[in-house]
């Protein structure tokens, strides 16, 4: 019995006909002709007969693409941006094939000539540095065909880590690389997938944009107004579920794309003539990320002795509990022992704002021990990727030296009022 087979399930006092969906938790699930799925308990079933009539599947004729339009290449890595429903069985699958994707988003025909590559299908929270290297290599290959730009379609959970990783690993990009996801899967009529994807394509193909870097494109609000194009090193997922979950942290988006006409609102010109080079991640690295909190214990920090680097997610301006109690003093001792052997970077769990280790004695003491990060405004996640990438390319000493350099646009010398807005407006 295969998914989609027409079956009749016979029980003691009844028989029900529909399409077989699945067996799960001692129930046989069928989709009735009314469209509803119901479950029938195994114990009550006396027989299931399968109707051998062939399932009719109609195929649609693919619409020809306009090859005079700019080329945009899409790399698929998973996520729900290309989800489609088979209403016969109610199953949700992914449309990785170009023609399938174009039938899901026919508006793409008006903007670009689309090609695509399936890299892998993973939840973004499952990605490891090896997967990053696959994406990096996917971009390297796509660039050879000289497209106007490249889109990386992926799950949104860790999209901001990937955006940072690509920002460092893709040096001298000759075109934009834009990460796109969906907070509502594309099988839903209310999905944000189509608008995010069209906005990314519009950004890439716009005459007002020449951006040789990595960006992330998602909804800018919870209405149907505009998408934000975030710099790859600045975006962060700030909400579990809202469409506008991604924000530029400690900066503002590069530009916005209006859903009215799919035009960018601010011109973007950031080009490079450098040679294109990919510099992937070392998959053997172990980088820690540790969060300061009240009543923590020194013991847990000791495990990082076997790591290659450590990001501290401190409090406030960049502090750890290192005084006023013996256990706190033990924490200071562990940091003191670790700092000479592995690079340690201070960030803040406030997410917003800049690290300053000169203001209070706790900060000064950590700085004196060699803890990096003073004056930086990267998020803990951005710092995590930056340190991992540096340690993938260089030894610990060189990585320490380079940590203060602005490598991929991750640093801004000043903090501005508009970088931090509260959300309590009516």
């Amino acid at each position: 019995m295969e998914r989609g087979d027409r079956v009749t399930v016979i029980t003691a006092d009844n028989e029900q006909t529909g399409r077989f969906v699945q067996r799960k938790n001692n129930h046989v699930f069928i989709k009735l002709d009314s469209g509803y799925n119901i479950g029938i308990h195994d114990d009550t079933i006396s027989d299931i007969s399968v109707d051998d009539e062939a399932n009719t599947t109609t195929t649609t004729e693919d619409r020809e693409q306009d090859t005079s339009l700019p080329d945009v290449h899409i790399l698929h890595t998973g996520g729900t941006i290309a989800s489609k429903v088979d209403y016969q069985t109610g199953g949700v699958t992914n449309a990785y094939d170009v023609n399938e994707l174009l039938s899901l988003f026919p508006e793409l025909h008006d903007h670009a000539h689309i090609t695509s590559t399936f890299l892998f299908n993973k939840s973004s929270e499952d990605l490891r540095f090896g997967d990053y290297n696959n994406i990096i290599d996917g971009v390297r290959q796509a660039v050879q065909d000289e497209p106007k730009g490249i889109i990386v379609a992926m799950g949104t959970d860790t999209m901001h880590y990937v955006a940072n990783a690509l920002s460092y690993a893709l040096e001298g990009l000759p075109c934009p690389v834009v990460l796109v996801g969906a907070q509502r899967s594309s099988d839903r009529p209310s999905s944000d997938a189509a608008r995010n994807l069209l906005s990314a394509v519009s950004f890439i193909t716009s005459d007002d944009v020449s951006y040789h870097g990595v960006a992330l494109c998602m909804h800018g609000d919870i209405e149907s107004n505009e998408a934000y194009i975030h710099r790859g090193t600045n975006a962060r997922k700030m909400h579990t579920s809202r469409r506008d979950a991604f924000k530029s942290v400690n900066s503002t988006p590069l530009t916005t794309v209006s859903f009215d006409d799919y035009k960018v609102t601010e011109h973007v010109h950031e080009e490079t003539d450098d040679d294109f080079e990919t510099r992937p991640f070392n998959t053997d690295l172990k980088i820690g990320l540790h969060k300061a909190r009240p009543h923590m214990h020194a013991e847990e920090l000791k495990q990082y002795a076997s790591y290659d680097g450590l990001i501290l997610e401190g409090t406030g301006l960049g502090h750890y509990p290192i005084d006023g109690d013996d256990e706190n003093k033990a924490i200071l001792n562990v940091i003191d022992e670790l700092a000479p052997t592995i690079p340690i970077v201070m960030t803040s769990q406030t997410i917003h704002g800049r690290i300053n280790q000169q203001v209070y004695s706790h900060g000064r003491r950590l700085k004196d021990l060699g803890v990096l990060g003073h004056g930086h405004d990267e998020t803990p996640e951005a710092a995590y990727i930056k340190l991992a990438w540096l340690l993938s390319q260089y030894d610990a000493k060189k990585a320490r030296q380079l940590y203060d350099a602005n490598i991929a646009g991750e640093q801004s010398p000043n903090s501005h009022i508009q970088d931090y807005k509260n959300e309590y407006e009516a």
Partner: protein
Amino acid sequence: MKHNYKALGFKAGLEIHQQLPGRKLFSHTPSTVRKDNHDFNITRELRASAGESGDVDQAAAHEEAKEKQFTYQGYHDTDSLVEIDEEPPHGVAEQALETALIVAKLLNMDVVDAVQFMRKIVIDGSNTTGFQRTALVAKNGHIDVGGRRIGIESLCLEEEACQIQERTDTHDTYNLSRLGIPLLEIATAPDITAPDECRAAAEEIGMLLRSTERVKRGLGTIRQDVNVSIAEGARTEIKGFQDHRNIPDVIANEVQRQKQIVDDEGTVEKTVRRAEDDNSTTYLRPMPGADRMYPETDIQILTPNPDDVSIPRTIRERTQTYHDDYDMSNDLADKAVRYELNSPFSFKPLFQEYTSEHLSANNIVELYTEKREEHLPDDERFEEHAELLLTDLSAGNVSYDSVEDILQDIAENGTVDLAEYELMSDDELRTLIQEIIDEHPEAPRGALMGMIMDRSDGQADGSKAAQILNELN
């Protein structure tokens, strides 16, 4: 308009939608429809995705062709992120599921072993998600109406949609507060063979729903859609009945409309139409194709046990019991049950404690419903005096004839001294009557009775006075 419905091959089925109280089906905001000024607006668009064959559903396409924008007027208390499709649904409201099981039993249905919520594609903007979450809870039931058996095909538990405020060619505005209120959808088989039977079936289902005491009451909380067809016509879904009593007239007019088209050698299209105030129907939209549904994976599959709920006594059964056990008129028994349905109150303990030779169950119901309604509607002061009043009435200390004066007294003075209404003893009454006879030896009997009642100032029991007058005169 009279038709020979049998000769026309008339068939009809009902679809009843009943709102449930408590929390929203998939969030923890209250199931309250708001009419006051909204707190925020959200504007959105929806898109119809192609089905597995590349076709966009007919009704879906119809809506998409409009390329509409939808504005949702929301309220901070009734609308959370769930209602604006910015947060996944919370777990199903247990109370609503229980109610569905109870109704399934009342409708003699088989509850399915595993309940799976589905996403039913609806892109007219009435759901922010673009689909309605709905689950088939029970199948294969029946009700008996006027000696005929009408099948109940399905009972679904689903989300109520937003309420339309304004429709233009390019922009629809919806009130968001109604979205997500739990809704029972009951669909009968097309077993109904006459318009009056359709109305009776709607009334029967309505009575059963109210019997649970777990459904919302009032305007707009229950809606009936009627599917009608005649042999040479086509299935038409009629929505928007303001009153189920109009069902027969609207059906008669719709049958006439279809007959006219057939007579003019036209073809009747399958359409959805709206019942208008003059009982005619007007075109709403083409009949949607088969519902496009797929599983709502954000919600756990439920395996309810129908044995966990018990079947309540129906309003009809309760009315019958009052009628049989307390010698109550059908009218008053019905009033008593209705009164009970609208308040956390039961007459039964009162009947058991206070009925006597002086006070009947009919009296008690009349006192609580009609008389109270007239003199002390919604007035808590009635409750303050009810126990003493019932005690005196039951013991025969106060005549039931006085209750209107007593209620009026409370209404005017805020309180009452029941002693003022206490009946005279037989000896006192006898003395009074003898006095009146002595003063008016020539007066006819009727005049004497009038004087007795007048002079006793309500403290004489009429029948007792007549009996004593007979003895003395």
